[in-house]
């Protein structure tokens, strides 16, 4: 039911772990099936230098986490905030309809981590980016 790309990221996940002196931490739980994802980022200038994840969840959730951390490396914060759930799912060659909600987890955790970084810097949040388009309602 999963694409080869999903299975590849599930079997050989990129960037597993936790950055000890992280600049931003994003921890989200999936209200639908009770899964948890934690993304930590390191920022240099306005670019994401490093990103790592830890995930408690299904194969799709692990692949999504891996893909998000890969997509985000080297991106500016602006660009990173542009990464949508759909973009993550597309990069994985698609997810089964029942698993689309898992892709929310990745983009949400990333946004939380960036939000955390920006807050720690005492900067203003670009409000519009954080409206709640990430509802976990099952499709």
């Amino acid at each position, binding site marked *: 039911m999963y694409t080869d790309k999903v299975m590849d990221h599930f079997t050989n996940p990129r960037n597993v772990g936790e950055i000890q002196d992280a600049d931003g931490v994003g921890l989200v739980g999936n209200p639908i*099936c*009770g899964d*948890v994802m934690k993304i930590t980022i390191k920022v240099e200038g306005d670019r994401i230098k490093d990103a790592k994840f*830890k*995930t*408690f969840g299904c194969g799709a*959730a*692990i692949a999504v986490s891996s893909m998000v951390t890969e997509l985000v490396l080297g991106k500016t914060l602006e660009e990173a905030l542009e990464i949508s759930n759909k973009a993550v799912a597309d990069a994985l060659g698609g997810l089964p309809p*029942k698993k689309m909600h898992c892709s929310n987890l990745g983009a949400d955790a990333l946004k939380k981590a960036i939000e955390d970084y920006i807050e720690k810097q005492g900067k203003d949040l670009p409000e519009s980016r954080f409206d709640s388009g990430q509802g976990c309602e099952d499709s």
Partner: protein
Amino acid sequence: MKLVYLDNAATTKPRQAVAEAMLPFLGERYGNPSSIYSIARDAKAALDEARGKVAKAINAHPEEIIFAGSGTEADNMAIKGVAYAHSRRGKHIITSAIEHHAVLDSVKRLERRGFQATFLPVDSYGMVDPKDVEAAITDDTVLISIMHANNEVGTIQPIEAIAHIAKNHGVLFHTDAVQTTGHIPIDVRQLGVDLLSLSGHKFKGPKGVGALWVKKGVKVERYIDGGGQEGNRRAGTENVAGIVGLALALELAAGELEQETARLTKLRDYLIKGVTERIPHVRLNGHPTKRLPGNASFCFEFIEGESLLLSLDKVGICGSSGSACTSGSLEPSHVLLAMGLPHEIAHGSLRLSLGHETTPQDIGYVLEMLPGIVSRLRAMSPFGEEVSSSSACSCTQEEHHLVKSHQS
């Protein structure tokens, strides 16, 4: 790659002899058992013989056996059939929270049609307390339906004790024996039940054929209307090949039940011991001894079942899980929740169900592969770092006690 099939509770590999016995009925011996000429009589004779075999295997009379399209259909027929046939006497049904959905959803549909239902709780082993059954009986109760053994955690229920209570109160008692038939001895008279469901593909027979045993004299409203087949109790031209296959599979299973139970119990306990010894933060689900000979069900803390299944599949091991992520409904298994497991623990469940082909080498292979898979997933889990510190463990005292007593 080696294939280690440990999902025999989902379905089993049909025996070669069963497949061969079925073939003529998909070819030369194609007669309709209800017709009059010789090839029809030949099919009818095969049907009668099959009915006799099934009856013999469970100590019933042949005319008490109704063949059906699946275990699910047998359950539906039993519950709806009894409820509607006796609704003028009462409209209350007692069942348990851990039944298969074939039973649960049949009862829930009846609830929407004006019946009342009680879903009895179970203890932490997944066991129904006969005292709870007795306490739930009212003047309005017409049916009790409690499964013989649970498909997820393997716990064998105190059917005889419940049957005794049902009889004292004059209430009909159905048991879903889909997981036990062909695996542990079934004697309907000794069990004391009034109706019993079974399914061919769980004991190395074909899929899509089951049977309901209804004790002589018990009224069941017809559930599928049409022709007069199955003694006018279940319409539809019989699945002769399937029925012949089911009957032979059951006959063969009954013939080797004793050795096979002993062999599987040993393998199962070897697996349970190996897993609980080699992997920390694991618990056995279900009763340590009153369980199906082939069922080993675990919860691994800090990880999720679907990712565990995918990892096992990568090394050729087939299992199943009650995790929310594997269920279409995104809710963890109702059985594990009813046993009091918290959501996040139920999430990490793994059922390995052994069968006729399972060898000690297979179990050795699982014990070799599983610890590495679990630690790899734990290393990926945000809860994984807490594994070594017991203070971070969220289980209650009682749960720790449970794990310990399971291991002994």
